């Protein structure tokens, strides 16, 4: 996790479906980034990661950098890197993956 800058969230893939999931404040894995627990220091997040890494319902949990936008209604959590933006959204060639269920088509 060298060089990782907070704020961060914890993400993984669901064991059964492979879908991208994020750790919520209740330590449950949810498919939406907006409901994830945001950690203000990488150390905090790493301590939690060490606990959840031994759980068997997800694969490959890791920390990802986010930005928290407070100037939008209800605030919003946005991935820092485009790879995580694609994981949050789905592929760009078909309207498959998370974007299918999010109501609006996200235009890149």
């Amino acid at each position: 996790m060298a060089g990782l800058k907070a704020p961060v969230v914890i993400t993984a893939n669901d064991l059964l479906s492979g879908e991208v999931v994020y750790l919520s404040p209740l330590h449950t894995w949810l498919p939406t980034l907006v409901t994830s627990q945001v950690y203000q220091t990488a150390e905090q997040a790493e301590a939690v990661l060490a606990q959840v890494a031994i759980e068997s319902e997800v694969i490959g949990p890791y920390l990802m950098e986010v930005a928290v936008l407070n100037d939008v209604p209800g605030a919003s959590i946005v991935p820092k890197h485009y790879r995580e933006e694609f994981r949050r959204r789905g592929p760009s060639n078909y309207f498959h993956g998370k974007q299918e269920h999010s109501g609006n088509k996200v235009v890149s």
Partner: protein
Amino acid sequence: MYAYSEFDRAFVRDRVEQFREQLDRRLSGALTEDEFKPLRLMNGVYLQLHAYMLRVAIPYGTLSSDQMRMLAYIADRWDRGYGHFTTRQNIQFNWPRLIDTADILSALADVDMHAIQTSGNTIRNVTTDQFAGAALDEIADPRPYAELIRQWSTDHPEFQFLPRKFKIAITGSADDRAVIRAHDIGLQLIDHQGKHAFRVFVGGGLGRTPVIGQELHPALPEGDLLPYLEAILSVYNMAGRRDNKYKARIKITVAAMGVEAFRTKVESVFPSIKAGFNNQVMTMLDGLRHQFSPPEYDEKSREPYLELLDTDIDFKIWIERNVSPHKHPSYASVSISLKGHGETPGDATSEQMRAMADVAQTFGHDELRVSHEQNVVLPHVAQGDLPEIFRRLQKAKLAVANIGLLSDIIACPGMDYCALATARSIPVAQEIALRYASREAEIGFMKIKISGCINACGHHHVGHIGILGLDKAGVENYQITLGGSAGGGAVDAAIGVKMGRGFSAEELMPALDRLIDAYLLLRADVTETFAELVVRMGTQPFKEALFVVDKRD
């Protein structure tokens, strides 16, 4: 086509049941992910960005119509209604759920298919010419040899944990359509003193260290094929590096040792290995050859074909671009383009798969091929049936006439699917195809190949124009290589040369415009292809064209 023996069938069934138990143990928590991962990978189940991915083996790219229909069924029942054909002549499903994978493998076993050795450090699917057994220019059908290698390499106990994955390609024609020089081992069938023999190339490969394979043997007798391959593999298995996966492919071993020293080692172990085979290779080959005998040709009239050729310009263009000569004078091979302008290269919907299966069953002696260029081929069709085939393919949106043109792009899945990717490939391919749709006939023969990371699954190193997607400080960036060639045709296999800094997604299309304009301006005449011009003039004029607007370089 090769028909499974009872041994093959039982072997594949056993593997499905073995995997089902492993899966159950994973789901119950008895196996951790670390324990399960190598087991699922041995059965083609990967985890990608958004979902699992199942890679199904299509040995040397050959499919029956029933097998193609099963792929369509799997796409509908357990996936998202489509499949992605790959450069290893395989198919990948992008959205299976883990819990369904044993059922999918069982369905595949129903039609003598599987996903064994589509992953891991083993010998992968042997690839060959998509026109094998049909090509006018071939010395002999390479598929009996490919099948021989498949049988030998499947579950070979010595080669299940090689230093790294291992890819073999074989061509029966001097005009290489199987990119053999970019393989760990490339085999070219030749006629040597009236007998079949092989030119054997070793240590080719793409990825982060691209290398063109070197000749290891000028004329290996066909009866020595398996012992010689086994000799190469056993030397590599011992000498290949296992400390660093980026230095573990045979190309690194050969480069470090030198091809002469490598050959000496192979030749030193070859006699004892050959003795172990006890001259059985020729017997096995003879047994396999009759399973690949040519179809019973229908002597149909060519009239309907010749008539439509005179009256329908779309048909005429499709014939010129997508139809290849066949060794039988009234037959042809049809390339079905999976490169519709703006579509994803290599993707076919389940409906399209069924349409292709129907055409193959009715007009194509029940045979289909997947090409390494991510298209599908009907190897044997009577010319008299071409008008009806064209009509049916048109109806299924499968009659795009762009084989060998700029929009016939190889592209890896890139960051739209792949967990290893550093940038997207598919949207770049889509944009290029749409951008040049109206100009590609004028531009002519052109191979653009796009990879979304340095591992080069999109073969960018051997593209006439290669495009490599990278992550440059958190932004997608595309590096262009020129002068690459997959071999075959007029330009020898070659690795492309990097053209300076990369381009952002926005800069890329104008840069390609300048490149294409330079080609049209500089070519001697319309018959000089882009690749030939780069050989004649070098890359400098194109580098200047690429960077003319941008003075930072």
